[in-house]
């Protein structure tokens, strides 16, 4: 159990990665409120498991716990989540003008939407690489994948993101994903 010295070590080694933990949870869950709850849960789990932490990459260690906690949460809440897709009305209504769509890549809302519509595993790998700046080795560690498949998974994830940006899915089709 952690007390005194271990608590201080945990705060010094693991908690500096709280932003990374929250960011990953926010993108996996597509919702800040849920991300806050799940990140808190994950950090408490990490604290309990700190005894098994070996010196090494604390960020990757924490993110692995965060993603597992997120996927468990998603499994448990999937039924509910299907009825609670993110609220379309909060998104700016883009015109269907092809020129606007062509500019999608530079638009934060468009990118957010495109990223949120990707399958979880693609979203996860893009967030880890593009937002968190993780190396392939770290991504392999966090997602428990062989390092050799990280590059090909990234290639496919980026391909899907580009497709999503150039042809945003119609609203009806989005729910079927």
């Amino acid at each position, binding site marked *: *159990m*952690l*007390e005194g010295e271990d*608590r201080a070590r945990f*705060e*010094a080694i693991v*908690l*500096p990665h*709280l*932003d990374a*933990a*929250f*960011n990953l949870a*926010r*993108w996996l869950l597509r919702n*800040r409120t849920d*991300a*806050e709850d799940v*990140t*808190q849960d994950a*950090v*408490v789990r990490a604290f309990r498991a700190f*005894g*098994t932490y*070996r*010196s*090494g990459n604390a960020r990757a260690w924490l993110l692995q716990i965060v993603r597992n906690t997120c996927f468990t949460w998603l499994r448990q809440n999937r039924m509910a989540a299907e009825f609670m897709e993110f609220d379309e009305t909060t998104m700016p209504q883009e015109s269907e003008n092809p020129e606007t769509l062509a500019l999608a*890549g*530079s*638009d*934060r809302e468009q*990118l*957010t939407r495109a*990223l949120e519509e990707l399958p979880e595993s693609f979203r996860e790998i*893009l967030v880890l*690489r*593009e*937002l*968190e700046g993780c*190396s*392939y080795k770290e991504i392999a560690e966090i997602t428990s994948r062989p390092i050799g498949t990280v*590059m*090909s998974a*990234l*290639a496919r994830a*980026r391909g899907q*993101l*580009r497709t999503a*940006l150039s042809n945003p899915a119609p609203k009806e089709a989005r729910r079927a994903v």
Partner: protein
Amino acid sequence: MPCEQTENQLHGYLDGELDPVSAANFEKHLESCPDCKQTLAAEEALHQSIQKANLYERAPESLRKSLLGKPQQSPAVRPFPAPRVFAWQWLAAAAVFLLAVLVGWQQLQKPRGVSEAQLMAASLVDAHLRSLQPGHLTDVESTDQHTVKPWFDGRIDFAPPVHDFAADGFPLLGGRLDVADGRTVAALVYARRKHIINVFVEKSLSENYWKGAGESQGYHWLAWQQSGFTLCAVSDVSPADLAQLQQLIQAQ
């Protein structure tokens, strides 16, 4: 039709993950492949727009506060002020206390004096702890028993039994030389899920002929005799896991 290289190396190149030789080869390839050039430009543009869009979302202050208990008084100096004690921490403290009482009571039941085996085990548990320090785990790092076993040739005057048990959930990570109780021993390193197991091997002599099982500093150990060797497995995994590894080694 995209070039084959696009699938294989373009992303590694884009992310700076190729080794220098592969990167140079890919650059050479780029000069003669308009498809790859175009794809690379598109990927770079996508990367740029993601960076510009500033999609990273930082943890809200409320989360930080709920984890740390108090608002930050001077973030520059103390980014993580003393936390409030969670209810579960009190439970944890209570559990530790109960455990201490239990262990203490068990100790009282045992005969006085520390046995030979406990002393042996204590020195090996110390060696196990040292091995967990960064860079101390293995002298030869390989999951291949045919790499690890020959490594010991000439370094130690016996050939320890080296086998990989990855199929049974105990992958071999490597080996090293260690010193316990003033003697040089071979250490074989296995993983068990996220845990590390050291199996210390030395030739059986009258002064190290021992076996048994126990716990020291929270680590389990299991020692046995096998074809002229004294073996002792040390780890924080369960005694059942150690027993399973022992059976695997004995079956070889």
